[in-house]
């Protein structure tokens, strides 16, 4: 095992391979507060990539209701229980990562779902914590809660799938950090399925190999965001590139949200993979639950997010979510205008901080009809 630095847990840790970061790292920010679990992302992915034989129950992208939704069943709670105490000492994780907690003979602490665990992708959907009494109404305090968690492969800096493969069939592309399973080399041992804590590698019984989210790399190579991003109805997703914290640039949208504003947080950073999908945590969910899921910086992230209406830069950048199919590598706000630029510096999108409001008269005198405002 090598020693590598994982900034998300604020310390060095053990990993199967030495630290070798990609030239660029694919990353994303998901705003959980905007997700309505319409599953359009799931279908966009499904119809693009997993309509083949053996992929019937395979969802590279899924949206589950937390805390009672899981795909596959119990993917997170099973591992959380195995991992034991996960305490933080400020910004430094004091517990063990899944690499450090690996049992004898294993490279990673993991578990392997049964086929039946994939059979109910909508288990727990819309189930909320605490019963809602008859006649209950909202009075400013959320006594009952759930939220939607959209998930894809995290294209981790330290992928557990990659480290677990005994024949190195999984690789991380040096040019963009996307993690792929070599379909010509994989022999279907399912070690990666056991090792990935997010359970985002899947065994295909018809091809005898494991398969996973490819971050729509043919689109990425053309400077475009993946299918699940551009089809998102709620515009909750934003794809781009992330830097190491010490190299963060405020004009890089992902860096700005993750490193500068610290409003978007990694999913289960304590597992130790340095996952590269970052979540703006949901409001109105008990703090303890969020800290376990997103780490110790939940309070700050939520405060920043609540203040977004008064923060023109943050709210400005959030308006770029879902505004273009292209990847915004750089951004700038000038007064009430937000501009997005591609890798070459070409302006690819310009949006107003606030859309102009038009009030339509209820009666159209020109046509002699009354109109109803529907949205």
């Amino acid at each position, binding site marked *: 095992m090598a020693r590598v630095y994982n900034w998300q847990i604020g310390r060095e840790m053990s990993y199967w391979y030495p630290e070798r970061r990609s030239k660029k790292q694919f990353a994303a920010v998901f705003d959980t507060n905007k997700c309505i679990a319409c599953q359009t992302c799931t279908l966009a992915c499904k119809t693009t990539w997993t*309509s*083949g*034989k*053996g*992929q*019937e129950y395979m969802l590279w992208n899924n949206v589950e209701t937390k805390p009672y939704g899981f795909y596959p069943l119990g993917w997170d709670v099973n591992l959380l229980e195995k991992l034991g105490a996960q305490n933080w000492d400020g910004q430094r994780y004091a517990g063990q990562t899944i690499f450090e907690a690996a049992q*004898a*003979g*294993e*490279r990673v602490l993991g578990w*392997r*779902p*049964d*086929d039946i*665990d*994939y059979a109910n992708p909508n288990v727990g959907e819309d189930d909320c914590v605490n019963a809602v009494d008859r006649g209950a109404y909202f009075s400013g305090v959320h006594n009952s809660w759930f939220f939607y968690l959209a998930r894809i492969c995290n294209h981790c800096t330290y992928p557990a799938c990659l480290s*677990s493969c*005994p*024949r*190195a069939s999984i690789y991380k592309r040096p040019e963009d950090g996307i993690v792929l399973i070599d*379909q*010509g*080399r*994989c*022999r*279907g*041992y*399912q*070690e990666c*399925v056991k090792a990935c804590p997010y359970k985002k590698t*899947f*065994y*295909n*019984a*018809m*091809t*005898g*190999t494991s*398969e996973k989210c490819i971050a729509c790399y043919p689109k990425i190579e053309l400077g475009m965001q993946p299918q699940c991003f551009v089809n998102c109805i709620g515009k909750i997703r934003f794809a781009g590139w992330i830097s190491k914290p010490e190299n963060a640039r405020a004009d890089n949208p992902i860096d700005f949200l993750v490193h500068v504003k610290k409003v978007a947080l990694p999913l289960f950073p304590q597992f130790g993979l340095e996952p590269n999908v970052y979540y703006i945590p949901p409001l109105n969910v008990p703090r303890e639950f969020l800290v376990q899921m997103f780490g110790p910086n939940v309070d700050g992230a939520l405060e920043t997010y609540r203040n977004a209406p008064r923060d023109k830069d943050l709210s400005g950048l959030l308006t770029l979510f879902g505004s273009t199919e292209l990847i915004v590598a750089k951004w700038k706000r000038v007064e009430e205008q937000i501009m997005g630029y591609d890798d070459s510096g070409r302006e690819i999108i310009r949006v107003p901080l606030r859309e102009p409001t038009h009030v339509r008269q209820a009666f159209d005198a020109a046509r002699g009809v009354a109109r109803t405002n529907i949205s």
Partner: protein
Amino acid sequence: MKVRDFVLPAAVFFAATLAGCAKKEPPASDSEVKAVFEKTLPSTVEDKIWQRAPLHTAKLLLQDMVEPRLMQASTSFVRVQSVTDGRNIAFRLSWNDATVDDVPGPGRFGDACAVQLPASTTADVPAPQMGEEGRPVEITYWSAIFQAVVNGRKDDISAIYPRVKVDHYPFEAPSLKPGSAAQQEMAKRYAPARSLGNPMAGPRKVPVQDLLAEGPGTIRQAEKSLSSGSGKYSQGGWSVLLVRPLPGGIQAGGRTQAAFAIWEGSHQEAGSRKMRTVWIPLSLGSAK
């Protein structure tokens, strides 16, 4: 003594002797695998030739040298017999197994076995753990999952989950003529491993694979598929026939080494999680 008192025990003795003849135990070979010379190689695990081929019982060890390791022993020994015709060599491997595991799926693994030989016969052999860099080993691998498909199980999800209901596969759209070039091309697009020619992905005509390795984790498909074989489950165990060409530099009357591995599917064994032997001397008989 009445005649009846004599006839009955005599009949029992005679029948028992006959049964013994029909199920003649092959001679034992404790120290090595002896490949007897035959003009014709056996074509099944039941071939009568096997009654003449010495039986070597090889103790199986945990693969606990490289991660991921097998930490809990499963199959304890494999019985090995061998026959050569001077060009090819046949192995008959049999081992006890309480369960038939031949269905693939998430968390499901197939029973399997393999024979390993040094790619070239020299005075010393490469490391028994799948050879070493520059000193490859040749592996003939048999899988119960492959065998089930060769035996006629449909290569389709409905063969694994009989009640499955699939709405639609894009490559089976009514607009595509089944079996047409356009339809085949589209089907490949939805099975990347198959379109890349990954031998795990099928289509499959034989239940064995010819593989090469130069150390743990380096297994790859041999340039040519030359091996054949078949496996059969009966009486609480598998019997598998593997036939392959003799490796380079060895001929009838020569000596080399062989190693064997067994994977127990119900124990979630695959890849490096297996029971294996050390190198075992292999002597080849010759025409008298």
